[in-house]
């Protein structure tokens, strides 16, 4: 605590003043209290999220026994994994293109590629609805996982620009002499890309993959428009559960997803360290 600290506070150590600490503490409570309450009440032996009536796992049983919910979760994870993989390739390649080459209409290309970042998701959602349902007449009765195709395509479209953005800022720190040295030593284009450029891009690729995965898993609006009536993703299912009845089953399913988020964060921390993660944002 600031009041008990031994060394006197230096003028710039704002974070050691009491009111700053209270402010940051209050913001953290604001950010985390709702999530903590949600997680605690997923173990509550009562139908409503109000009074604590004893500890139970029954809503986890119910959530995991709910076939539609489990199917939706599997769908969402499949979509996120595939969308991340392809976004990573497209995004990295686009970053290399913008970083390495000078070509006509570069500004326009650059702008168009980053456009999905700013276009509101509702507008992209309706665009995909018209494109897939009306224009392509995309079949909705394909077998799994091909029935997820439309959503995967939509997710790649809004995820890969984020990968491009992250990878591009990483490439800006690349020393091009390394590339020349590799070429002088006889490496071909592909060998340079694989052995020099990719290792340099690695932290950005990890950050981009995490970003894509979370963005894809997060998306409700675009999936609800792009997917056919029979393709259900986790957010779409949770939405209809929240809309029509608030049950602890949703709490249980949400807690599982929050734990997955924390797990992913822990993996990222292990791979990159807390400082590197913080710097990619």
């Amino acid at each position, binding site marked *: 605590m600031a009041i008990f600290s031994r060394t006197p506070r230096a003028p*710039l150590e704002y974070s050691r003043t009491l009111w*700053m600490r209270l402010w940051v503490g209050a*913001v953290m409570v604001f950010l985390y209290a709702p999530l903590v309450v949600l997680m605690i009440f997923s173990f509550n032996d009562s139908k409503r*999220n109000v009074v604590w009536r004893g500890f139970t796992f029954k809503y986890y049983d119910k959530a995991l026994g709910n076939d539609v919910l489990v199917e939706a979760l599997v769908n969402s994870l499949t979509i996120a994994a595939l969308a991340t993989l392809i976004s990573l390739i497209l995004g990295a390649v686009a970053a290399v293109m913008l970083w390495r080459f000078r070509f006509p209409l570069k500004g326009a290309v650059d702008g168009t590629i980053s456009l999905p970042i700013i276009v*509101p998701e509702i507008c*992209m959602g309706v665009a995909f609805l*018209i*494109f897939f349902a009306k224009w392509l007449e995309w079949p909705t009765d394909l077998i799994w996982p091909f029935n997820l195709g439309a959503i995967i395509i939509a997710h790649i479209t809004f995820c890969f620009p984020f990968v491009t953005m992250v990878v591009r800022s990483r490439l800006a720190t690349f020393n091009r002499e390394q590339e020349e040295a590799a070429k002088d030593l006889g490496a071909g284009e592909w060998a340079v890309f694989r052995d020099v450029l990719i290792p340099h891009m690695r932290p950005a690729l990890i950050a981009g993959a995490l970003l894509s995965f979370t963005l894809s898993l997060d998306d409700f*609006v675009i999936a609800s428009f792009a997917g056919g009536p029979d393709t259900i993703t986790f957010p779409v299912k949770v939405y209809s559960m929240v809309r029509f009845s608030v049950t602890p089953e949703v*709490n249980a399913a949400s807690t599982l997803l929050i734990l997955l988020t924390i797990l992913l964060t822990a993996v990222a921390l292990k791979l990159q360290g807390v400082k590197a993660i913080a710097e990619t944002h």
Partner: protein
Amino acid sequence: MAEQDWKTNKRVFAAVSLPTLLWTLLFFVIPMAIVWFYSFGENKGLTEIEFSGTLENYKRATEFLYLGIFGKSFAVAALVTLICLIIGFPVAMAITFASEKWRPWLLLGIMLPFWTNLLIRTYALMILLGSQGFANKGLEALWSSASWLKTLVGMQPLPTWEPVQLLFNNFAVVFGLVYVHLPFMVLPLYAALDRLDRSLIEASLDLGAGHFRTIMRIVVPLAAPGIVAGVMITLIPALGAYLTPDLMGGTDSQMIANVIERQFKKANDWPFGAALSFILIYAMFILIALQSMRRKVPEAR
């Protein structure tokens, strides 16, 4: 070695440019172009849409009702951005000047909610703000202790507590949007403050300016690009927000995204929905143009 001209290595250029260009063209430019054409069409029958080049949809969008919704969406988004700035600025300051050991963990603390599913966060807030939720319980406890204090000093007790409606109204929408967008504001603010030359702040303090004056006269002007970036990063998604007003708002707190959705689902008026979508996109463009103009001014000097 600077950027390479594409003609010097056409094979590699084709390999790195074709996948992205084709993807963007096919799955972004074409779908958006179709929406744009739809916005000049009209409904013929239940599913038929004729592209007649009419401006009727845009004319309808300027009706009082829809202008009001646009205005309200802007007002809500601006208010949310302002609240996020007021809450977020001290947090960003605290993170910037925290010790090496604490800084990454504080940042992680801000980023973890940002990585958590939006729908789950909205739902968590709904539990808290519900008429039987903890926010109401807390207020009730405050109310009854105030009532008890009054009886203690011999006054009439307060009337019995009525639960406040915290959900399904405009307050809930603003509260929910602030909750969801706060990390968007803090992270760019931190990035800007972190780059600040600290000796300037020290000089200001040494020369006798107080902390508040130093922040207003030195820190804020120097961090202005970051503040503008934070404002844009918060304002743009808040303006197009769909989920929070849909789940937490009442019948009168619909924002523009909800109206667009209704045109495509219940109202089944796709051309009008397309026109509203493009008006929203144009609004975003104007905001971004304003930002880049602002950025150019100090460079010109």
